[in-house]
């Protein structure tokens, strides 16, 4: 068994539900906490557009309700990432991942611009379809091995089916597609900044965590 997580630092068992930290997940967890903090204290970027061919420019105002909604979504996304990092239960991980997907849809869709909304809609459909392989993999694994706890799967004799792992990776990739669509709508230096950075960070974190899970179980 290849272990990239390292030695367990901390294990909290609460009935069936289990949380654990290894040096690997602890690093990811601290990153998630740091960026959630940054999302809490940061202000929206004031966007300035220059009229082509002249001296004129105009500044776009972000209204308070829109700013509040975007900040809320960014914080919720950070909390969902934190949950996905610490969870030692496969189904909880998939649930937190799908919550990351929903909040990413919210972050992208908060900008009221037809171009951006089209991208958000396309991403939302991908994220929704991705729940099929995501939950499908968790269901397949629990049906074949009888447990969802990651340490038990790592220690137990039952082989986790390869198709289950493949579906899990596919589902996480689908949920973490947000940066692609945000880039398609040219949001990074424009309407969505700085909250849109949560899209990239949460996708990166859930990708890194799924690598750990797939190599551990």
């Amino acid at each position, binding site marked *: 068994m290849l272990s990239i997580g390292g030695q367990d630092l901390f294990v909290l068992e609460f009935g069936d539900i289990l949380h654990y930290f290894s040096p690997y997940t602890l690093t990811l967890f601290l990153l998630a906490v740091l960026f959630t903090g940054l999302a809490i204290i940061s202000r929206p970027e004031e966007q300035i557009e220059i009229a082509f061919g002249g001296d004129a420019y105009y500044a776009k105002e972000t209204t308070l309700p829109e700013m509040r909604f975007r900040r809320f979504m960014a914080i919720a996304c950070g909390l969902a990432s934190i949950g996905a990092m610490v969870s030692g239960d496969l*189904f909880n991980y998939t*649930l937190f991942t*799908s*919550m990351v*997907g*929903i909040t990413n*849809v*919210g972050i992208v*869709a908060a900008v*009221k611009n*037809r171009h951006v*909304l*089209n991208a*958000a*809609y396309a991403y*939302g*459909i991908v*994220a*929704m*379809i991705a*729940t*099929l392989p995501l*939950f*499908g993999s*968790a*269901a*397949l694994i*629990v*049906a*074949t091995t009888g447990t*969802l706890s990651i340490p038990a799967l790592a220690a137990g004799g039952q082989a986790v089916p390869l198709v289950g792992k493949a579906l899990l990776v596919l589902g996480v990739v689908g949920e973490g597609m947000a940066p692609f669509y945000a880039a398609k709508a040219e949001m990074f230096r424009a309407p969505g900044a700085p909250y849109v950075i949560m899209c990239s960070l949460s996708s990166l974190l859930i990708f890194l965590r799924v690598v750990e899970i797939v190599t551990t179980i």
Partner: protein
Amino acid sequence: MIPEYSLGLFAAFATAAVAFYALVRETDDLHRLLLTDLVEIVTLAFIALVGTDLAEALILPGLVVGISELIALSEIYRVKEGHIHPPRKGLRIEVMDSAPLIMAAILVGYGIVLSGFPGGAIAGVGVIFYFICRGQHERFELIETASGYSWVLWIVAFFTFMLFPQYWFCAVMLAGGAILVKVMAKMSLIGAMRGGPNA
């Protein structure tokens, strides 16, 4: 592996293939949204195939995720296409004026007898029917408050199970009644989806 499970898995994969093929072929945005709901149902089928108590516990979050994504996407679609008109009053037939009270009373009564989750669903159908027919000039804050308190009771019952297992019967009754009110209150909101003064 048990043959029923393999058979069901095969059927679910076949359905998923049909749904994905339809999604590839479809180009209209609204129809794609409806097709993703088809994919969502296959997801629930995958979980339900496990067929244990654990599957029952897992299917509810799966359902909630699916519904919340569907609602979020519908809202994005509505804003994107610029549909801002409130829904019109449709469908007025005679039975909708005479039946609601007695039908709702029967369904709610039967739901209370059943109690628990299925009871909540049946009582909820009764309340949905009443709200759809009569309009909802009722006080939604009241329903929401009842729903919140029933959630608290449910948690209390949960802790009673964990800390004082000898009072399990009281906890079962508490949880059964609370989940009845909770599910009914949540479902009754569907009856108010046509819009209205305080919806």
